[in-house]
């Protein structure tokens, strides 16, 4: 499994806002374990996108926004989930739209806000959640701890989603 939980970037206003979508497919292995048939209780399988991975999707959306703001010079690490509210499940066939905005950028990191919208065929788009995060610029915060020179945070999967979404990176 590749650890990339957004499929495409729809909009990028550098240093301000990034909008990305995640399409949910029944081909994703984890949906078959979340949740499988419960033979004890007699319940059918109920595939639903895990809330933790929705948060990860928002974090990737916001993390790219924060990283892009300084041309991916910093190793941008998710440091804190300040707030996470998710009011509804997303299921196969649905699309989640994540909108991340930067509330504050500092030398040590950034504070972001994120909203989650559910685009479900046949239904009106609905805002279903909010995820506020704090990111850390790793090299500026660890008091002399050495990390590899190359930016291991923004690897090939991120570069691919940026490129296929038409976002130019130097």
């Amino acid at each position: 499994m590749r650890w990339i939980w957004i499929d495409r970037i729809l909009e990028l206003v550098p240093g301000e806002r990034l909008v990305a979508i995640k399409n949910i497919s029944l081909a994703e292995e984890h949906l078959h374990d979340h949740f499988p048939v419960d033979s004890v209780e007699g319940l059918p399988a109920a595939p639903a996108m895990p809330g933790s991975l929705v948060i990860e999707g928002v974090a990737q959306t916001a993390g790219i926004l924060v990283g892009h703001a300084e041309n991916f010079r910093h190793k941008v690490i998710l440091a804190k989930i300040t707030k996470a509210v998710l009011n509804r499940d997303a299921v196969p066939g649905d699309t989640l739209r994540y909108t991340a905005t930067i509330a504050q950028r500092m030398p040590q990191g950034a504070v972001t806000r994120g909203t989650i919208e559910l685009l479900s065929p046949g239904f009106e788009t609905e805002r279903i959640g909010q995820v506020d995060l704090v990111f850390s610029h790793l090299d500026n915060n660890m008091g002399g701890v050495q990390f590899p020179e190359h930016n291991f945070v923004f690897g090939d999967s991120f570069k691919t989603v940026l490129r296929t979404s038409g976002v130019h990176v130097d």
Partner: protein
Amino acid sequence: MTRDEIFEKVRDLLVEALAVDEDEVTPEARLTVDLGAESIDFLDIKFQLEQTFGFQINEGELFPDNVTQDETFVHEGRVTPSGLAALKERLPHADFSSLGDNPEVTRVAEIFTVDALVRFCEAKLARE
């Protein structure tokens, strides 16, 4: 805004930021030892204070800016008397009473009590 009102706002934002109970946020509670704040929480608290009170906090104004990594202020893992004097000058709101004269660097964050935050906000609001 009265001191009590400032305290209430600070308490509410700490309850959210640190996921602690309201009754844990006493004036003398230290953010790290008593309320479990980690380094990244200080970034968050600074941001939340700005949002709540509508003022801007400059780098190093509320929390020390690399003083503890400055070799002239730290010797063998302890803050030197001159380092302590520099901290006291830069951070008049902080509570140094529990540290002693030659504290370990790792204990410096204990100067930030809930009351220190309230004093900081009070002074900041008074200047505006």
